[in-house]
């Protein structure tokens, strides 16, 4: 049932051939609860997702802002665990064996699960790549190298602080795509500034042929359109989490129209990202 090549490579190749940008929505696993999350996940490809990034909640999400922190807390209340996240991926793969899935999470829950066991289970469930913000290239032996041997990609992050000296270290052994962090700060903290990105993207392009996706601070279809022109893909997270949150009242009750509204919100941003 697994594709011979990584779904991520296949998808980026197909997008490139079609001259399209990748729209990559992010959703926190288990948010707003364990029943609704898989409905959102299943609806994302139709809402325009070319690749899906699933957030693995962590108690101490140091790189994330309030929107994703709130989503984490809610997901824990709903009972999310690492095995349940892999169950969601397995469930998604029953009806979609094409859309690449990237798991984004901090290292400790993976380390606690057991790195080799996690990689094997994630591979079997249908995961294609990982983003682990607290694993810089200096700690490659921990996770990236064993992941690579299973044809699972660990996405490198390039940030505004990644200077000329640092860039080769980050690009070395990178596979799949590069995650370009548009601001120095936490997720959702500020709006990305397209003009400042041009320089960073230009520097990356000189040294790498990998697709570049931009994340942190993309909130509207207009921003997605502008940012999309700069890069090969756009990642949108906090804005979607905020949209979900708007359907939850102060007592934690979830409104009936959440799934449809969030998916139509995602559809709108995806149109922007796709240049529409």
């Amino acid at each position, binding site marked *: 049932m697994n594709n011979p090549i990584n779904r991520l490579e296949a998808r980026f190749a197909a997008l490139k051939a079609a001259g399209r940008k990748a729209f990559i929505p992010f959703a926190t696993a288990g948010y707003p609860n364990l029943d609704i999350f898989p409905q959102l996940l299943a609806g994302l490809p139709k809402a325009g997702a070319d690749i899906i990034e699933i957030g693995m909640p*962590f*108690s*101490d999400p*140091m*790189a994330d802002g309030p929107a994703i*922190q709130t989503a984490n807390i809610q997901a*824990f209340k709903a009972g999310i*665990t*690492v095995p349940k996240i892999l169950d969601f991926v397995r469930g998604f793969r029953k009806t979609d064996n094409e859309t690449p899935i990237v798991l984004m999470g*901090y*290292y*400790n*829950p*993976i*380390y*606690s*699960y057991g790195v080799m066991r996690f990689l094997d289970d994630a591979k079997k469930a249908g995961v294609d790549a990982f983003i682990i*913000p*607290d*694993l*810089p290239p*200096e*700690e490659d032996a921990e996770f990236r190298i064993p992941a690579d041997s299973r044809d699972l990609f660990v996405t*490198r*992050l*390039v*940030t*505004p*602080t*990644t*200077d000329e*000296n*640092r860039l080769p270290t*980050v690009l070395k052994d990178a596979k799949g795509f590069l995650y370009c*962090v548009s601001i*120095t*700060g*936490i997720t959702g*903290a500020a709006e990305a500034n397209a003009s400042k990105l041009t320089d960073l993207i230009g520097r990356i392009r000189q040294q790498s042929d990998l697709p570049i996706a931009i994340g942190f601070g993309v909130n509207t279809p207009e921003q997605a359109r502008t940012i999309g022109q700069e890069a090969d893909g756009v990642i949108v997270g906090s804005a979607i989490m905020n949209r979900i949150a708007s359907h939850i009242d102060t007592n934690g009750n979830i409104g009936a129209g959440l799934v449809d509204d969030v998916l139509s919100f995602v559809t709108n941003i995806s149109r922007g990202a796709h240049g529409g």
Partner: protein
Amino acid sequence: MKNTSPTSDSLRNVPDDNGHFGPYGGRFVAETLMPLVLEVEKAYNASKDDPEFQKELDYYLKYYVGRPSPLYYAPRMTEKFGGAKIYLKREELNHTGAHKINHCMGQILLAKRMGKTRIIAETGAGQHGVATATVAALFNLPCTVFMGELDIERQRPNVFRMRLLGAEVRAVKTGSRSLKDAMNAALQDWVSNVDNTFYIIGTVGGPHPYPAMVRDYQSIIGREVREQLMEAEGRMPDSLVACVGGGSNAMGLFHEFLDEPTVNIHAVEAAGHGLLTGMHAAALTGGRAGILHGMRSYFLQNEDGQIQEAHSISAGLDYPGVGPEHAWLHDNGRVSYVSITDNEAMEAFQLCCKLEGIIPALEPSHALAYVAKIAPTLPKDHLMVVNLSGRGDKDIFTVADRLGVTI
């Protein structure tokens, strides 16, 4: 000072170039921070070889901090326990009332050397925050201290001290609203203000080089103890006792003696309500290996790898992790890690007040409580050194509350 340079099979030649103490330590931080962490490491290494830097540090430690701190023979405590001869290393007599000023002075001189213009810090008990605010005032640098909302409530005097010293105290309302969350907030701030900001970390934790750097700045404690005890008794100590939250005062006392096989070393974690209740802060005794705050070490966590809240009467020990060097010294058995409950610490706190006329902080009260357990079993010629790492003025509200007294 006596030269005690490490040998090849030494326990004092860690970490390696990548900041590893055996399997612990490392640099588990976001890519945004990596260039900064590498820059701090480079600047720190250069400062170690710069006699001018050392000279400046020595000057401030002597004339501003008030070093060396006395090594005081505690006669009534010794008599009360009826065993080991007890010496107190009086770190509570340092300027600002705790050992924290030692690493703050080192780090702020490094920040100046690096041309940084803004200081941030996290704090639990407030002692590190006060020490950071103090050195920031001394060198005229704006300073923001992140502090859990819960800790702000229970350490009010220190919050006011920081504000008097011109620091901004920013309340952290996420998670357990204590030290771990303050550290998350400080790291987030650092990620957002990478250009001008130096993060003064308050313990032997965080990404490399912080655990080694903070230890090195604190190890003056042990070097002084060696010299002072030599003068008082003509020999080395037989045992050392210190409390461990993150573990800076303990590493400061222990490091000098790690290669001395005759010195028994005891580190005391906070058992809170008791280890079996799950309401404690004993990462080594009750946790397991994990990754948080830039390092691999021991952490309190659930079966799914989520970090759990720590519980201790002492805000300074209320942290679910511990420095990576302690994790390594725990695994290789060089240091014995034990734990003391809130109630035991409260008893020792009161005993120290009445017997020696010293109001200790609740943190070293944990060390004193362990001394009360083992000193009676030891011979009278056994020399025991306890790190009295801070004074207890900041804790009087907590203690009064616990005793049911209104002040």
